[in-house]
């Protein structure tokens, strides 16, 4: 009796020691993470129902901040523009990266050079590359419009000078910059598909297109899921891209939620509105993520 008791106590203290060692491993990162990320996230939720300018006392505002931003024409425009931007960026980047991955999964010479070249825009600084794209898209004498005129388009789009076209310019640059990164994730997925599947299908007389539809695409579902989630989250976060290309203009035609939040915080110093807009951004991203996780139960694959 006494012996088992000491044994349990020993086991207990061993477990306790193991737990302590575990905590000691995560502590250096976790303490910083909790203070500088977790607490601010929670504080945002509090701020969204408060009225505060950062100097005077905070007062409870209830849903006033939310009412105010929904009445704000700039917020509503930013909201819809963000959805437009996210839908097209996600869909087109996904297609481009999938196509590139399939093309670069083939056994060809210089495969790595191609991959690196396509990937490079991802590591290029948005500010530096934004200056380049602004020149390329210049409406009157930029090379893209010069090219369009030379192939017979008399009235090429005004791109960043036009309220209708600016957002499309932003979407094009965004696809260009990020497709290489997602291509790599697709390539990893493609490498995990057993070659035997293709061999069997070829023996059965399946065409290239049939093999793609019946083997490649279904087998890539986990990759597509991951790419979709990351793309969605990152598109909602886009700030540097817009800032470098258009600064939200002309007018407010390319002001997205991230830019709106920045402006409310650091231009108008309206903390309540900024926090409320943040919560809206957060809820949208969360909703999209949850819907995806529901649709795709392979979440555990990633953890």
């Amino acid at each position, binding site marked *: 009796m006494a012996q088992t008791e000491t044994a349990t106590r020993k086991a207990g203290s061993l477990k306790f020691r193991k737990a302590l060692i575990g905590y000691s491993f995560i502590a250096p990162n976790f303490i*910083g993470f909790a203070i500088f990320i977790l607490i601010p996230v929670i504080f945002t939720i509090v701020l969204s129902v408060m009225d505060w300018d950062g100097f005077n006392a905070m007062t409870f505002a209830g849903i006033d901040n939310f009412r105010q931003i929904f009445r704000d024409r700039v917020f509503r425009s930013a909201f819809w523009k963000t959805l437009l931007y996210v839908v097209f960026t996600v869909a087109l980047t996904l297609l481009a990266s999938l196509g590139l991955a399939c093309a670069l999964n083939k056994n060809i010479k210089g495969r790595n050079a191609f991959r690196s070249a396509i990937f490079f825009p991802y590591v290029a600084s948005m500010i530096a590359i934004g200056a380049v794209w602004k020149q390329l898209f210049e409406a009157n004498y930029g090379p893209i419009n010069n090219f369009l005129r030379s192939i017979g388009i008399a009235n090429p789009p005004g791109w960043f000078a036009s309220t209708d076209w600016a957002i499309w310019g932003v979407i094009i640059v965004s696809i260009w910059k990020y497709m290489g990164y997602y291509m790599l994730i697709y390539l990893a997925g493609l490498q995990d598909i057993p070659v035997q599947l293709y061999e069997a299908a070829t023996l059965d007389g399946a065409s290239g297109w049939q093999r793609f539809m019946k083997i490649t695409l279904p087998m890539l579902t986990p990759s597509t899921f991951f790419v979709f989630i990351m793309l969605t989250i990152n598109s909602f976060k886009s700030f540097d891209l817009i800032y470098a290309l258009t600064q939200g203009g002309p007018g407010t035609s390319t002001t997205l939620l991230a830019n709106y939040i920045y402006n409310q915080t650091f231009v108008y110093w309206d903390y309540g509105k900024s926090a409320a807009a943040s919560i809206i951004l957060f809820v949208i991203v969360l909703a999209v993520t949850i819907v995806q996780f529901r649709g795709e139960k392979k979440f555990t694959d990633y*953890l």
Partner: protein
Amino acid sequence: MIEKRSPVKTVLIYVMLIVLTVVTLLPLVWMVSSSLKLSTEVFTFPIKWIPETFHWENYVTIWEKINLATYTFNSFKLSIIITLIQLITSSFAAYGFSKCQFPGRNALFLAYIATIAIPWQVYMLPQYIMMQRMHLIDTHLAIILLQSFTAFGVFLLRQFYISIPDELLEAARIDGLSEYGTFARIVMPLTKPAMATLVIMSFVTVWNDYMGPMIYFTSDRNKTIQLGVQLFVGQYSAEYGLIMATSVFALIPVLVVFLAFQRFFVEGIASSGLKG
């Protein structure tokens, strides 16, 4: 794939890939080419991809116009310090989350994962207020504190650590290695590609970050290279050649890091997201 392709098809694939690659790299070629031109030559059409005379002096002029040396130094300083802290604390935490047992492990890890999904703008304001209270606005320490403890690094390394068989660690423990010894002698050496990936990702992210420095650094001596480029774009908006020279200069360190570790990088990212 095993099947034999017809030569026509092979040629078609190459043509398509080359066209795609050229189109992707064209903005970068434009950037380098324009950086060696006079501002008046930049927009000539048809485009002269190779300038008639190489105006190397653009690369000298930019140093006289803005404090490029200070900005470059600051960018290196921040990128290196943040990368080091991230590497050390993230690999520790990743080991804790993948190979140690303790109460609340999964809940804590979920908190990490959740913050990856939260756009930074959501908590940017509370962070700013916090830094204000700590009197750290316009100091490098602010950015170091805010960017060193990201969930991303922990997540990335954990994906690699999971693939290390537990039996291997068990064997090391039986041989008398402590948990810390097992980590340092077994896990660290096995995951060099993962750490290389994190180093590059982190360096590139900090080097390229614009919004963070823009919010926190007001005095010129604290500014980073990205702010420098933007400053240049704002002040000398018609000096196209000089703008491109500054942009090329800001890209060089990233290009060097990228080319040096390109193998690790490409493989590291590819396997991080999906295996585990």
